[in-house]
């Protein structure tokens, strides 16, 4: 059981870290602002989510686990809306 959980953690955290790698590569290599934004959201949502998922078996108390889920949900809502805001700002500057 222990081993299975550890393997689960390693897989989840590694894939989360991969999304951060992908997000960074996208942020650096993609040609314009809006496509970069697309790369960023992947890291924000999936990367953090997978890492949280991987950490869940390791937390000491259920309440802390709840907080981790709350962190992810907050980050999800916040980063999705923030991306919208940044995109609108970028588009607004181009449009006018």
């Amino acid at each position, binding site marked *: 059981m222990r081993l299975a959980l550890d393997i689960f953690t390693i897989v989840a955290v590694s894939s989360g870290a991969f999304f951060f790698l992908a997000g960074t590569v996208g942020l650096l290599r993609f040609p314009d602002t809006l496509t970069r934004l697309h790369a960023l959201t992947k890291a924000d949502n999936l990367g953090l989510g997978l890492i949280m998922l991987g950490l869940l078996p390791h937390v000491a108390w259920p309440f802390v686990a709840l907080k981790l889920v709350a962190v992810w949900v907050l980050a999800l809502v916040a980063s999705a809306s923030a991306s919208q805001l940044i995109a609108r*700002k970028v588009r607004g500057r181009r449009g006018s």
Partner: protein
Amino acid sequence: MPEFLLAAAGFVLAMVALGLVRILRGPEDGDRMMAAQLLGTGGIAALLLAAGGGLPAAADVALTLALLAAFASMAFAKSGVSPEAYDEPKPGEKE
């Protein structure tokens, strides 16, 4: 396992740190803001990974950071709009 989590924390931090090159290069302010946003998320991940789920306080710090993660972006979104949008006098206000 703690070693692995710490290594993962280092990796994530290194990745988002690389992303900071965008602050340097721009070219638009939006790009710079994005790098900060990415570092915010990556910082939360690194913080929790480094604590390895052990420290309850780390979850509180992460919660604070997550709550304020989009804060700078939100302030940025409005920052170009001048507050003069606010101009007409309101009733009951001293002039």
